Every structure is written in structure tokens, then in C-alpha cells.
């Protein structure tokens, strides 16, 4: 991450930490939802019947997706540095691309299930 200023690196650490806190909560709720969801059938129609139009469900998973999109690329950047010795602008760009991909795919899934 030599292409980044010290302040940016400190902020990235902060955002990774904050997103990790959100993810920890989200995972617990998500597990609860899974257990609840399998109680009355796992067919697509049964699940969609419960999720369609449920804005609370949509809001929760939107937060979950955004927290992933913040958390994952910062960690991947570190992995790229330490395991692959891949640093600099190209590694940062690749991380941004993965973040954008996660956001798009995640929000699309939320849209598909809720609306």
C-alpha cells in the first residue's frame, strides 16, 4: 500500500474494523434468519413468499452487503501484499474492482429477493 498516504492507511484500518463489527452482528442475525427460514420449507416460492415486500429484510441485507464490500477489499489488499508481494496502484485498483463487484452482485440479489 505504498501508494497510499499514512492517513489513508489509518482510515482503511478504521473502516475495516467498523465493518467487522457490523459483520459480526449481521452474521448472528443471518444465522437466526436461516434457522427461521428452514422451518417451513426451503422451496424458492416459500422463501420468496416470506421475503417479498419485506423492507426490513431488504434493509438488513443491504447493510450486510455494504459491510462486506467495505471489509473484503481491505483484507484482500493485505493478502495480496503479504502472500503475492503484489503492491501499488494495480493491487488497489483490483481491490476496488472486487468491492464494486461485491456491491453490485449483493445489491442485485437483495433486489431480486425483496422486490
Amino acid at each position, binding site marked *: *500500500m*505504498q501508494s497510499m*498516504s*499514512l*492517513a489513508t*492507511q*489509518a*482510515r*482503511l*484500518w*478504521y473502516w475495516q474494523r467498523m465493518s467487522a463489527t457490523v459483520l459480526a452482528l449481521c452474521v448472528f442475525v443471518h444465522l437466526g434468519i436461516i434457522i427461521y427460514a428452514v422451518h417451513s420449507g426451503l422451496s424458492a416460492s416459500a422463501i420468496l413468499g416470506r421475503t417479498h415486500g419485506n423492507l426490513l429484510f431488504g434493509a438488513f441485507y443491504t447493510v450486510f452487503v455494504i459491510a462486506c464490500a467495505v471489509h473484503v477489499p481491505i483484507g484482500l489488499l*493485505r493478502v495480496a*501484499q*503479504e*502472500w503475492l508481494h503484489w503492491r501499488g496502484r494495480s493491487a488497489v485498483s483490483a481491490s476496488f474492482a472486487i468491492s464494486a463487484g461485491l456491491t453490485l452482485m449483493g445489491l442485485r440479489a437483495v433486489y431480486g429477493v425483496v422486490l
Partner: protein
Amino acid sequence: MNTEKLRVKVWRSGAKGLVTYDVPRHESQTVLDVVTFIQRQMQPDLAYRFACRVGMCGSCAMNVNGKARWTCRTHVSKVAINNELEVAPLSNLPVIKDLVTDMSAFFEKWSRAKGQFSGSRTRHEDFAKVSPESAQRKAADAGIECIGCGVCYSSCDVVTWRPDYLGPAALNRAWTLVNDERDMQRIERLRAVAGDAGCHSCHTQATCTERCPKHLSPTAGIAGLKRMTMKAALEGDL
């Protein structure tokens, strides 16, 4: 007469590997006693480093059965497995000969982390009065007893992965100084320890803390530096 033997495998530069010695086993024997016996009685050209023999100087650290330890305070009875020991030089440092490593990089990193105290008073002024009860002083005191043995540095996987990482000891030193209210170089030091070769590279695996013979917690100090650099970044000081 005690005939019990200890089978000791010692890393030798000449052999480029482990050489086995049978050493008489004694009660209350330390690993340093064992290495000293080998050098004095069996292998006079065995190179190793020690000075105080009482856990103060930090010069006798070696890898014993795969873990970095201070050998003068490590009893054989605690670490030998089936009366066998394996003694090797510290990891993450270049070996000069046998059990002696070149610790220049280790101490240069203390320097890079601005590990020097920088006060404002002269000898002609009165002593600074620092409350031992203040939160800052307590944080500094928690890490101040480092003896610079290199056990944490040798045990740190992040140092292995990226050799420019400052490492636990240098960062612990910086943490004690940023908590020293007499010190004048706080912001410069935070700049020196921030970033990917500094505190932000720590994975919080805490092997340094687990192995520190003085039971310090460089992990806690590094976490503190992360918080402090974040605050400095928010305030525009970084």
C-alpha cells in the same frame, strides 16, 4: 553419579544442519547451561551469545524445540521432550555463526520507529513529576520492561512475510514513548509507526505476547498505536 543423558541437536553453520551431542542431565539445568557445556567440553568452536545469565540482558535468546525462548531462564525440564532438545538460532534474522544471529536489523527498526526518548528539559531543570497513577503512565509501564531479546521478533509471522515490518519490539518501544508525557516527538513517532510497514500490518495473532519472556503484550501496544494513529489521522496530524 548421574548417568542420565540429554540428547541435544544444535544447529551448526559449518554442517549446515543439526549436530547431535549427548550432554549429562542435571537438576535445575537451563538450556543455556546445556549450550555452555557443549561449547566448553565438547565443541569449542560453537558460537552462541550470552552475558548476564539471569534474564536481564536479552542476549541469549534461541529457538528451543521450535519456539524462541530466553535460554538462561528456560529450564530443561520444562522444554525437553523425551530427554531431547533442539537448539537453533532465532528466526527472521541472518545467522552469523551457529546460534548467533545478526541483530542489526532488529535494532535498526527500533531506531526507525523513533525509539529514542526526546525530552524538553535539561539537566539544570527540576525532575518532571509524572503520576504513576495516570492512565498514560500505566500504559507505558506495562510495556517498559522489554529487554530487547528478539524473541517476539523471531516469533512474528508478519516479519517473516514482509521483512520491512517494524516488528513487535520496536512498536512496543514506540508505544511506551507515545505514552510518556515528557516526550516531545509524539507525532513524528506516530508517523514513523503508521502504515503497512508499521502497526497496521499486525494481524493480532499475538504470538509475540504468548512468547515474550517478560510477559509483556506488544499486541496490546500495537493495537493502541492503531487507535492513536487513527485519532491523529482524524485530527489531520498524520
